[in-house]
Structure formats: C-alpha cells, structure tokens
C-alpha cells in the first residue's frame, strides 16, 4: 500500500538540512534531505548511530528548526502541524512522569491539548486496554517493566489521536524478546489506529519487519542515500522473519548501509 501512497504526501521534505554551530565549528547534522512520506505510510529511517536520523525526526516534528530547505506537513510548514497537535512522539526512553500512575501519564497530553475532561478517563482506559495494561492503570512507572513503560509511552503518544506517530528508536533499550513482542503490538495497533508512522532505528531487521519503505541514512553529513520499498505482504507475521524474502530485504538494506 505504501509506494503509491506517496502520491498524496503527508510529509514533504525539500532540501531540508540542519547545521549546528558548536565551539569547534559547524556540524552538518542533516544535509539536503528531499523525501515524501505518504498518508498512513510506515516509513523507517535506518542508519548507524550518530548519522542524524534522530535530528531528521525532530526536524519533521518541529522540535528542531531547519537551517536549510523546507519541511511541510500536508502542504503547510511543520510548525503549523505541531500547533495542531498532529505529532505523537515516542522516544528511546519512556520519559514517563514518575509521580503519575500509568493512567495519569496517558492522560497528560489530554490535559494539554484540551480533550473533554469527562471523556479523558474512558479514553485512557481504552488505550491501556489496547496494550493489555488496563490492570496496571494505577501502577507507578517504577512498578512497571521496561517494555510495559514503553507501551504506556506509545499509547500516551496516541491518546489525542494525532495523525502522525513519531518514533525515535523506541525499542532499542529493550531486550530482544520484549522488542519483538512490542514490534508485533505496534503493528496490531497500527492496524487499529492507522497513522502515518516515521520510525527511527539502527536495527535492520526491525526496519524490514515493520516498514513500508526504508530510508537509509549515512553519517557526516547525515543524508539519505537510498529509499528501499519493502515488498513483504501484510499482515506481517513473526514467522516471516525466517523467510528468504525477508532475508533478501535485510541483505539489500545492509548493502545500502554500506556494511
């Protein structure tokens, strides 16, 4: 469904770049990126550590302003999209507020974006149910495992129904079993709440398993060197990870990475 979805770009990058000024001169973190991401597309940004993929994600989400080029969301500057609360961010760390329960953490964005107060509780419980954490709604973050905390962080980013999910290596701090489990949870969630997803990762098979297309990045300066469509059928199932087709895609992505 993905490559043709690019005909109606949800996110449009045109020569976008970020240059940081440091004490030792300027660093080109992201250089001249032109890319269209389709409505409801799952795009993975794949690259080695320090290649600027997180900066590119922050650029799209208007957390870092571009120093060159344009970043547009549905034809308007990314800034306008952030003001309309179109972005739901999930980071490498869950970044939950430790004095709030799981439910209260999911409720945080609802309080900020002005979600009707009488509907907040029901919405939070519905979301926690979606990731099988309803039984832990009154638990504090330190009482939850790493995977549970990240699931709370994911539904927190979906709570007010933003149209674009921005994920910055969300599973990289988890062990492999938990990571695989959360990848499947994410795909199941994506089937229900069909968003545009930009997913930053340095894990090749994760990118292949999840994404419609993989944008491969290289460091210094951070630029996109290849965009690979992933032709695997959906729904993606765990057993697919062993198929020749899957491994072909992994090999292709590894080659594009230059490894």
């Amino acid at each position, binding site marked *: 469904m993905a490559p043709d979805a690019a005909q109606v770009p949800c996110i449009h990058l045109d020569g976008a770049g970020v240059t940081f000024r440091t004490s030792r001169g300027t660093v080109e973190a992201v250089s001249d990126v032109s890319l269209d991401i389709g409505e409801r597309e799952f795009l993975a940004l794949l690259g080695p550590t320090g290649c600027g993929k997180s900066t590119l994600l922050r650029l799209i*989400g208007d*957390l870092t302003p571009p120093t060159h080029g344009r970043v547009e969301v549905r034809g308007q500057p990314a800034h306008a999209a*952030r*003001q309309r*609360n179109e*972005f*739901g*961010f999930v*980071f*490498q*760390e869950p*970044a*939950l*507020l*430790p*004095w709030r329960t799981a439910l209260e953490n999911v409720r*945080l*964005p609802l*309080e*900020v*974006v002005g979600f009707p107060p009488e509907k907040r509780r029901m919405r939070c419980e519905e979301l926690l149910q979606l990731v099988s954490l309803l039984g832990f709604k009154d638990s*504090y*973050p*330190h*009482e939850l495992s790493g995977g549970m905390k990240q699931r709370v962080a994911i539904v*927190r980013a979906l709570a*007010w129904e933003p149209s674009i999910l*921005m994920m910055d290596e969300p599973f990289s701090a988890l062990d492999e079993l938990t990571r695989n489990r959360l990848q499947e949870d994410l795909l199941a969630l994506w089937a229900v709440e069909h968003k545009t997803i930009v997913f930053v990762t340095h894990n090749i098979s994760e990118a292949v398993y999840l994404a419609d297309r993989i944008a491969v990045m290289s460091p210094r300066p951070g630029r996109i060197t290849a965009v690979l469509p992933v032709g695997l059928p959906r729904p993606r199932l765990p057993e697919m990870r062993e198929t020749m087709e899957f491994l072909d895609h992994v090999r292709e992505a590894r080659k594009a990475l230059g490894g």
Partner: protein
Amino acid sequence: MSEQNAPPFADSPSWWERVLPPALILIALLIVWEGAVRWLGIPKWLLPAPTAILERFLKLKTLWSHTGLTLMEAASGFAASAILGIGLSAGIVHSRFLERGVFPYVVVSNAIPIIAIIPLLTIWLGFGFAPKIMIAAIISFFPIVTNTTRGLKSADALALDFMRSINATRWQVFAKVQFPTALPFIFAAFRIASSLSIVGAVVAEFYGSDRGLGYLVITSATQLQTDLLFVSITVLAALGIGCFSLFGYIERRFGSAQAERGYQR
C-alpha cells in the same frame, strides 16, 4: 501491615536505641554541671546552675511574647522569601535574560555579611519589626533560589521534548513537569532557610529593638543576667531544631512518598 511499617534496614535502631544514648549523656552533663556550680561555688553571673536556669525559665512570664515576636518576624521573612524565591526561580528558568542578568547577583548577595546590612535597613525602615523581617527574608533567600532553580532545571529533557511536541504552554510545562520535579529540592531548601530565618531575625534584634529573643540575649548579657541568657539561648536552640525537624519531616514524608512512586528511577 506490620511488615510494611518495618524499618527499611534490618539493623536500623529502634527509637529508644537512638534517643537513649544522647539523653543519658545530657543528663550526666547536667548533673556534673549542677554539682560543679554548687561545690566549687561558681558565681551565678559566670555560670548559673541548671536548676537556677530552669527556675528563671518558669518564672519568666514575658518569655512567650518575646518568642512569639521573633517567631513572627522569622516566619514572615521566610514566607516572603519562599514566595519571591520560587517566583524568581521560575523566572530564571524561563528567561535567559533573567538567568544571566539576575542569577549572578543572587550568588554575590550571599557573600555580603548580613550583619553589615542591618544598620542600613534600620536607617531606612526604623526600629520596628520591618527591618527584622527584611533580614530574615534576605538570609533565607539564597538557599531557596539556588535549590529551586536547580530543581526546576533537573526536569527530564525527553519529558520536556514531549510537552513541546504537543505544543504545551510554558505554564503547563511548569505546572505539570518542572514544578513537581523541583518539589523535593524546594523542601530541602525550606529546611535550611527556615532555621536561617530565625538566625536573621535574632541578629537583627541585636541592633535597636526593645522586644524579641535577640533583645533578650543582648540585654541579659550586658546586665550579666547569665541565667536569662541561658534561657534565651535554650529557647532559640529549640526553635532552630523545631524548624529543621518540621521541614525535615515533611521532606522525608514527601520523599518517601515519591520514592514509593519511583521518584529515583
């Protein structure tokens, strides 16, 4: 139930194990003191016996009005400092101009000996309790501002990013993320600042006043009423310890509640 209330460490002493040794030392000290004064015939103006001090304490009817006044001055100064200090910290965290322009003066102000300012404030504000409140406020301002600022700044960077990604207002970021993060720091500051504010009020009373514990200390010393001096010092010590324990208690209660909620991740 009893397991939940058990002390956190197996070898942590029970309350009487903690209280008994210092209490025994104190009693022994008082007995030696009393004995020495009686048998060596030390004059009352040089060192009054504990019983004489206690007698003076029980007979002194004006003591509570002096104590009340000093406490009022200290509490007013402390409250003003707490409100202004937390307000200024919020400003410093939100405005780079304030941080660069004001924070250096806050740090430098701590280096000025407070005693040197008292005559100046007396010229400006007279001999009433206004300069005393002022001194109590100034002396407790520094720990409140520095601690609160540090607390507000220690908010989690990713949590702040998340708030920004949903276009949260500065007020929402402050109320929902920064201020709750700073609360343990603020309570720690209150513990220090509250005892400092008493010191400030008393020192200010040394200079031009006719009431308060500071006045009592100065007059009893100049008139060689040493027993009265001891009474004043004891009351002051009790006040200081009281403030320290009160805020220490709140801090621990709050701290343990936060620890249960995983404040220290």
